């Protein structure tokens, strides 16, 4: 699935700025928990940080399973891109 470059840049900016991850490690195949060393508490904060970065709301209960299933950075890109698409279609 093609993801907008701006989505990738925004997600990477969040991970770099708020989770202090070296940008060199921000590759789509990176595993969030094993390679980037995030944990379940970080996952909670990541959702909030993505909301701020992309000025959108994420329904934690509705998307609970999707968020739980995310494993790679590519999964985050895809999730955010989908949410941005929903936001655009709702507002449009």
């Amino acid at each position, binding site marked *: 699935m093609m993801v907008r470059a701006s989505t990738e840049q925004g997600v990477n900016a969040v991970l770099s700025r708020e989770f202090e991850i070296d940008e060199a490690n921000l590759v789509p195949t990176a595993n969030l928990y094993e390679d980037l060393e995030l944990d379940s508490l970080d996952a909670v904060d990541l959702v*909030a940080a993505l909301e701020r970065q992309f000025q959108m709301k994420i329904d934690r209960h509705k998307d609970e399973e999707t968020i739980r299933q995310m494993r790679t950075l590519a999964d985050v890109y895809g999730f955010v891109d989908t949410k941005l698409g929903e936001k655009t279609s709702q507002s449009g």
Partner: protein
Amino acid sequence: MTVKTVVTGYGAISPYGVGADALVNGFRAGHAAVRAMGDEWRQGVRGTSCSLAAPVMEEIDTGSIPRKNRRSMARSGLLAFLAAGEALAAADIPLEMAKSGRLGVALGETLTGPASLEQFFRSYLVERDVSQVPANGFFQVMGHSCAANVAAALGATGRVQATPGACASGALAQVVGVGLIRAGLQDVVLCGGAEECTPATSAIFDIVGAASTHFNDRPDLAPAPFDRDRDGTVCGEGAAVLALEAADSAAARGARVLGNVLGVASNCDGGKMAHPGVESMAACMRAALADAGLQPEDIDYVNAHATGTVEGDSTEAAAIGAVFGPHMAVSSLKGHIGHTLGASGAIESIMAIEMLRGGYIVPTAKLRHVSDDCAVVRHVRALEVTPLRRIMKCSFGFGGINVVLVFGRMDDGAS
């Protein structure tokens, strides 16, 4: 036979800046660290009128703390961890010892993470939206936040004990530490306290009538322990940690001993929440002497808790006078750096040991006219250079918590 407890290291962040050296040099030089924060510091909150404070002005470098440890630390936790690290380094205690189970942590604060708590309640009550509250916010405000965060960041696997006892927290931690060491449960306990300086903290002291409110543009006059014109205390900020260690443990690893903890005592006033009485304070002082196997004449100087409140200072002076008579040398360090609350007992303990080592007494700052109701001891009003054998350190906290410690020089094992 009682296991002897020694001090092998300490660290501090105070209104004088980062490091125990800044603390010691600041007091020795008599520098003033209380500031006029301006009316805007009160943030337009009605009903509060204290705008003096003694925050840590120096920027704190927290970059050395791993993110996964740092994220759960309130400001007080950050300060406490940096002080604990300095104490470990000064004591030459390797991190492996922290992980051995033989090292414990006892830390307390009056208010746990007030800035973090304020942030949470702004989201919860004002914005009615907790979706942006950090997942680690709770770990910054739980009652044992300081102790738990320091232990986690050090990888300490021994006893972790929170010692919130309001303004006596940092001294109470040492009572706990000495108890653990004497019981043979720990070889080393990192003991101390921390406190953040926020407008809300000052407001709380103002509400209970314990804050200075008449000298907002004269930080050179308040707080003024034992002074005729004293009108309350001024809240300060900081953290201090002492590495208390079993004497045998220190000897076995060839550690440098800075001083001895000869006696400790803690009791409760058993009635008054805000104003401990003369009797319970004096009883605590006598209990600390008994614990050390000493008589009043064995003490050369009493480092008072005296915070500059009208009632607290006179009560303490009366208690010291009752135990020691009118000739005991007494001073308080609150005039210099304000009242660092949970940190004060540990900050002043560090200074007690430094005064023993250096042979000097730091005077009470801002004491211009000794109040009649405090004139029952010998107030030290200028730096005195004199050999000291032993110092009694008093700390008293809201809730009727009395704590008294007796320190001796490194070559003084006393009983």
